[in-house]
């Protein structure tokens, strides 16, 4: 019995990591339509932020909390720079965006290797997150509980911001109908910039959290990017609740399949499930209902 509970938790944990990596993409890919291949490198920037902060502060606990804030700002700032210098000129040219951001990602990886060296670096886990707790007979590492909570908090904060703040309303207005929003006096350029800042910042937060699981190298972001895109596509573009459900379903699927088969077979089966699912529901779990013809 405790195996089932353990695997449910592993699935939720895997899902929460995918969700954390995907939350920013829901905004930048889902809502703005930018296929940002450098999203993984914003995650990496967050991880390295955590590393740098830990080098500078004595306490692993304090540095984690500081890193979460700084990681958001660093990721966001990188997003803003790329938005202003490149993406701004490429809206409505998705293929060019894909290639350009892929190139930016490679450049950022090389920069990371030059600055921090090719070997992976490590961030110490704070003492209050080491060890595990027992939930219904299952042993649950504290780091994974932390990431689960963090992912839900980020998602909830983003949902609340989109729903209740003026900025959120403007963002939704622009995403639903750019022309109409502009003619109502909303500066779509500023909304784009802010949205991209938040989306990229969330990637930075994901990067900080991932240092609790494994080591940090220049390719850390890449390994999470595909799953993040998967979650956004399966959940429905720009749909937060879609991403939430997709991430946890995929996580649970992966964990139970891996338990009964092997890691590589499980990965293949998960892809098969997604491909079949998208055959029947190309728009994903949820889709935005608009009256537009496109």
């Amino acid at each position, binding site marked *: 019995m*405790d*195996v089932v509970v*353990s*695997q449910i938790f*592993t699935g939720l*944990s*895997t899902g929460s*990591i995918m969700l954390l990596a995907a939350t920013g993409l829901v905004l930048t890919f889902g809502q703005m339509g930018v296929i940002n291949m450098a999203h993984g490198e914003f995650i990496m920037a967050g991880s390295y932020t955590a590393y740098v902060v830990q080098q500078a502060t004595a306490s692993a606990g304090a540095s984690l909390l500081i890193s979460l804030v700084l990681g958001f700002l660093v990721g966001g700032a990188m997003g803003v720079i790329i938005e202003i210098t490149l993406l701004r000129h490429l809206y409505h040219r998705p293929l060019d965006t894909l290639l350009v951001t892929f190139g930016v990602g490679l450049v950022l990886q090389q920069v990371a*290797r030059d600055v921090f060296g*090719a*070997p*992976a670096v*490590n961030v*110490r*886990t704070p003492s209050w997150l*080491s*060890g*595990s707790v027992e939930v219904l007979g299952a*042993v649950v*590492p*504290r*780091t*994974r509980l932390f990431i689960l909570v963090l992912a839900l908090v980020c998602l909830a904060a983003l949902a609340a911001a989109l729903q209740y703040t003026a900025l959120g309303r403007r963002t939704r207005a622009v995403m639903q109908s750019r022309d109409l929003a502009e003619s109502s006096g909303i500066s779509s350029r500023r909304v784009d910039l802010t949205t991209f800042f938040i989306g990229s910042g969330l990637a930075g937060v994901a990067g900080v959290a*991932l240092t609790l*699981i*494994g*080591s940090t*190298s220049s*390719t850390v972001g890449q*390994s999470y990017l595909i799953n993040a895109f998967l979650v956004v596509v399966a959940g429905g573009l720009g749909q937060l609740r879609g991403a939430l459900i997709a991430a946890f379903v995929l996580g649970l699927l992966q*964990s139970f399949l*891996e*338990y009964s088969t*092997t*890691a*590589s077979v499980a990965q293949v089966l998960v892809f098969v499930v997604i491909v079949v699912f998208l055959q029947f529901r190309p728009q994903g779990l949820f889709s935005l209902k608009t009256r537009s013809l496109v």
Partner: protein
Amino acid sequence: MPRVRRRAVLPATAAVLGLVLTACGSRVGEDGAGAAPAESCVDTSGDSIKVGAINSLSGATAINETVIRDAIEFAVDEINADGGVLGKQLDLIAEDGASDPTVFAEKAEKLVTSDCVAAVFGGYTSASRKAMLPVFEDNGGLLYYGQQYEGLEDSSNIFYSGATTNQQIIPALDYLKEQGVTSLYLVGSDYVFPRTSNAIVKAYADANGIEIKGEDYLPLGATEFSTIVNKIRTADADAVFNVVVGDSLVAFFREFTAAGLTAADMPVMSMCLGEEEVAAVGVENVRDHLASWNYYQTLETPENTSFVEAFRAEYGADRVTSDPMESAYTGVHLWKAMVEKADSFDVADVQEAADGVSYDSPGGTVVVDGDNHHISKTARIGQIRADGQIVSVWESDGAIEPDPYLTTYDWAEGLAD
């Protein structure tokens, strides 16, 4: 994309190399004694002799190979300070293998046919060795490969100064069996070394009544170990046999420890966890677990004490010396001993003289087997101490003769096919 380009460049390079070949000085093989497939162009006329090193200083395995390069340079400097080889100073030409087997092969070809080096030291992954092997065989070069590997190979143009499977994997199993272990869980990264290694483990277990409770592989660099750790925990094996390598080790041991498993309830015997990896994983996550190597920095032999001392004086007091470094370092010294015994730099003479050449390495005296080009090595099981060092808790009864095809083990029949 770059690969396609490189291939296009190769014929042109070969053409240029042809010109360079004829431009070299006096030839070792000129008297016709050398039976090397291609005529050697090694220049032995001057006060110095060129040797080469290929290690990855960039890419995925740079973390492991940079320190190996240091050990090779250290050995070369040491030999030069001691008067060189046959009165000639060594001139080390160092190349970056860039963690890419294709690059390893290209650099090897450059070193052998264009720089005309007498020997090359380096190579890390089996893929890099397999890529370089035809280069050395076709051009009559010599490679000193200093890395424990999966065995099942013997090239007359390669000397293997790292452990083969019967000097690392089998001793680890012998030790576990001696400790009363009756069931094992196998976990590894998904590539040739862990797969081959676990095939040996399974054959051994089958013959020795050890139950294999499970076997799992994750891709290189994977970080999601929670399902595997769950499987391990519920399988309740006596010990874990671990062939996870590189960055994944961090994620594996963090998950293992976070799940509440300790070395006391379920020791993990690791094949690829050296002193550097312990530092990366964090000693709090691997304390008291086991490793199987031939050398640890903590060995208390006169050779090792002076090796560690001299290395640290040169490269910094915070540096560690690990098994892969020691094997590579030993490889350079073995080449020197072989050349001196042959009284010649010629590859054929060195091959001829190799059998029985010995060297007092930091890990103990090693002897070259002239038939399979491997060396005898003492196997040691180490336990990770609280300060991150690994101490030997068990040692094989003297040096173990190399047996890359496991022909002397009945239970291993058929494994080499």
